[in-house]
């Protein structure tokens, strides 16, 4: 049965591919700053945005973008001041976000916590042409921002103080990152849902790192892995009749495991066949003790 003759499957595939490409392009900077879970945190805050949208009968996705952006900017400002430790701030986001969404929805007359399910787990199959247009535009914007500003974003993520002394607009770029995170999270809400968003941002990066040596190559490999996992996820889920979002994440994890095992094996083989690299000259040169 060829499911891809149906328009809804083609839209699902296109949406997945765009997000599969854009999410790791953002995720690599999050991983570099050791903020891998921030995608999850912002995702949970987005749930409050969905609750606001459902309560006010506005587009839940638009409300999610706005609330997620506010949350992301807030997190960035708190981080900048260095007052709250990273994981504590994340805990506030995670729990406040989900609880906020559930409470708001319970206040709404015509939505229940079950309305949130599609946002938690993704709703790729029911993506309309308008949805795809929005995902495409935002996805391309994220890609352009992450690629065009790569040297500056790399410098900031790698050594923020040095970047400041270089005169780079560090705060502006950090806020750009925050807003980009919010946007990416909200468009990824459709594919894998809010509960699994960090997976698409982070797992391809983790997988790529097993085999790459530099930042540029890692970023390219991560985007490639994300793209393939997302595409394969939709195709496999069509055949196996499983939900596409979760299938994509499982495939990405499979790639990670395969690359890790492969890299370990490769290193073992090479170590046996190559001499050791030159070592740093020692400070102290040992000499044979004279035998008297």
């Amino acid at each position, binding site marked *: 049965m060829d499911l891809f003759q149906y328009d809804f499957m083609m839209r699902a595939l296109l949406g997945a591919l765009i997000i599969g490409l854009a999410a790791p392009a953002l995720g690599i900077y999050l991983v570099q700053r050791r903020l891998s879970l921030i995608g999850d945190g912002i995702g949970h805050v987005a749930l409050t945005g969905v609750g606001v949208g459902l309560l006010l009968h506005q587009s839940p996705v638009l409300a999610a973008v706005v609330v997620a952006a506010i949350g992301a900017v807030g997190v960035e400002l708190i981080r900048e001041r260095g007052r709250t430790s990273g994981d504590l701030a994340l805990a506030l986001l995670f729990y406040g976000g989900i609880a906020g969404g559930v409470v708001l929805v319970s206040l709404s007359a015509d939505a229940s916590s079950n309305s949130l399910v599609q946002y938690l787990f993704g709703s790729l199959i029911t993506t309309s042409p308008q949805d795809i247009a929005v995902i495409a535009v935002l996805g391309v914007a994220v890609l352009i921002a992450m690629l065009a500003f790569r040297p500056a974003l790399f410098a900031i993520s790698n050594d*923020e103080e040095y970047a400041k002394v270089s005169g780079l607009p560090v705060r502006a770029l950090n806020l750009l990152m925050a807003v980009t995170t919010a946007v990416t999270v909200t468009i990824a809400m459709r594919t894998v849902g809010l509960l699994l968003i960090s997976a698409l941002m982070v797992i391809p990066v983790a997988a790529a790192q097993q085999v790459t*040596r530099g*930042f540029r190559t890692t970023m390219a490999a991560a985007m490639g892995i994300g793209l393939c996992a997302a595409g394969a996820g939709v195709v496999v889920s069509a055949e196996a009749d499983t939900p596409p979002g979760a299938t994509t994440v499982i495939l990405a994890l499979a790639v990670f495991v395969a690359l890790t095992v492969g890299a370990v094996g490769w290193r073992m083989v090479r170590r046996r066949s190559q001499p050791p690299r030159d070592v740093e000259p020692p400070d102290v040169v040992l000499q044979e003790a004279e035998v008297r």
Partner: protein
Amino acid sequence: MSVVTVRHAAVGYEGREILHDVSLTVEPGDVVAILGANGSGKSTLIRTILRLVPLGRGEIDLFGTAQRKFRDWARVGYVPQRLGAGSGVPATVGEVVASGRLARRGIFRPAGAADKAAVRDALTGVSLLDRVDDPVSTLSGGQQQRTLIARALAGKPDLLVLDEPTAGVDAGSQEAFAAALGRFQLAGGTILLVAHELGPLRPLIDRAVVVHQGRIAFAGLPPEPAGHHAEPDHDHVHPHAVQQQAGICEWAPTDRIAAN
């Protein structure tokens, strides 16, 4: 026009004042070492000059312009004490050094041939060109420091500011960047460095400034270490007495107490 002028600066964190009434001038071509015990405020001083720490009172000028109006940061090269904390993802030596070019070309232009050439020159200057494609995390501490110096030099700055460059670094690396700094100074650059002990950098230093309890305690020719200071394993962690020109630990410029 002096490169750095600090006038009566006071700097504090969270209600505690670290520096009180510090004044300092660095002229073009100077090589100035800022010395002091742990906690004396010497790192805070250069971080304040670099605008990483806000100035409480007083004024700082960079290249004749007030610090808060200063925009030409490409003229300043900064070498922090260690590689930044953001290292969750591999980065090659070449990529780290390339970020030194951003101050020169701005964030909107892609890297060009001039940038690539500058990176290679900088790496050659610290003898690390053969490691340009290796991940920075596979380098030794000393090699990583050399990478950081190359990063600062890649931007072709006029002023180089280094924070404890020799701390925990092997002798070979120390020699290598003493040589690089020497070349920089010969080409007309100005150097401001914070150090605990000078080691191979000693011959370069024109002037030493000692910071003690948040104030300048001494400024002049670098003192020769004497007595137990002269021993190779001297750790230099004890506080210096507050002195003017008459010097540190009771020595006179022409005297030398016999090493015991």
